[in-house]
């Protein structure tokens, strides 16, 4: 009985400490997206560089493509942009940008200064398409398959590790 009185609080403490320790390594900003495995939302947006040309979800069916949400006002986009430019040189996948809540002019200048990895950027000035994609922290990146289903989402800046270890293997699988 004496031993039990000593062991029970110790066990409770150990369990609590275990949970808190695990909590140290969880990122509350990484919310698992309910959109993975679901069809990408409908959209019809003009191209950033050609306001008269509209790109729709249906236009993208039949190919695997990467959608990168960015904006010229977004600090973290500056960090990931060089990796994206390098990644585009591999020509592993068509890369489309979603220019989120931005203005055409600064956005185009931003691309001119830093390089343009995108096959095209969709211009989402109101942010409505961003909301439909569940975007809450730019940059975000989606991989969408031939059937228009979202297969992967990265919240926050892309890194070479994410591109090499997650995006490329998944691309091989989806295209294979």
């Amino acid at each position, binding site marked *: 009985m004496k031993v039990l009185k000593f062991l029970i609080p110790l066990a409770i403490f150990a369990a609590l400490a275990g949970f808190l320790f695990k909590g140290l390594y969880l990122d509350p900003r990484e919310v698992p997206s*309910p959109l993975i495995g679901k069809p990408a939302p409908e959209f019809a947006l003009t191209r950033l560089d050609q306001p008269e040309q509209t790109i729709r979800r249906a236009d993208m069916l039949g190919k695997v493509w990467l959608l990168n949400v960015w904006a010229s006002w977004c600090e973290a986009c500056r960090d990931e942009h060089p990796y994206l430019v390098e990644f585009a040189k591999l020509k592993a996948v068509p890369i489309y940008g979603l220019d989120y809540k931005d203005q055409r002019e600064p956005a185009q200048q931003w691309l001119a200064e830093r390089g343009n990895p995108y096959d095209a950027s969709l211009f989402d000035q109101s942010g409505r398409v961003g909301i439909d994609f569940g975007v809450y922290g730019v940059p975000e990146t989606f991989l969408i398959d031939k059937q228009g289903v979202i297969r992967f989402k990265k919240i926050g800046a892309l890194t070479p590790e994410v591109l090499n270890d997650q995006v490329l293997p998944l691309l091989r699988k989806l295209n294979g």
Partner: protein
Amino acid sequence: MADARRFALAALLACATALPALAADAPASAPPASAPASEATVKFQAPAARLTAADPALEARMLAITGELRCLVCQNQTIADSHADLAVDLRQQVREMLQRGRTPDQIRQYMTDRYGDFVLYRPPLKASTAVLWLAPAALLAIALLALGMVIRRRSHLADDQFEPEPMLDDDGASDTLGRPGTLA
């Protein structure tokens, strides 16, 4: 004997901790599906309402709904009282959906379709949230059980097993109080 007393104190403390959690959960057991939230909820979010109060009734309904949705950008605020850009957009989205006759349930569905159950400050009871919902009640039950056991055991003890009542001074103050170590 000091041991038992300490144990009883711990049990009481546990109860005291568990009770508010339980009370906070209580209203959710009977969520008013489409009824507007309580007045209190609306009042607290008045600052956000000042920005666009064209239609006070619509605004109140919008705030009632967004007051129970988590803002994804600043996660400890509701969409109703966050000033984040996304929260402003989502409030506008909810306004428009209400104007188009969408029910609060449909709007909550719209949000969870995009951001998951994480946006709901009242998460639904399902397998993955069962611990969240049941733990407060379970902790309270354990604490009450422990308290009951201690009280029962002590009620069977002979009088001489207890420390004598502290002697009282003339002014009514206990002479044992304040002396270190007497509680333990």
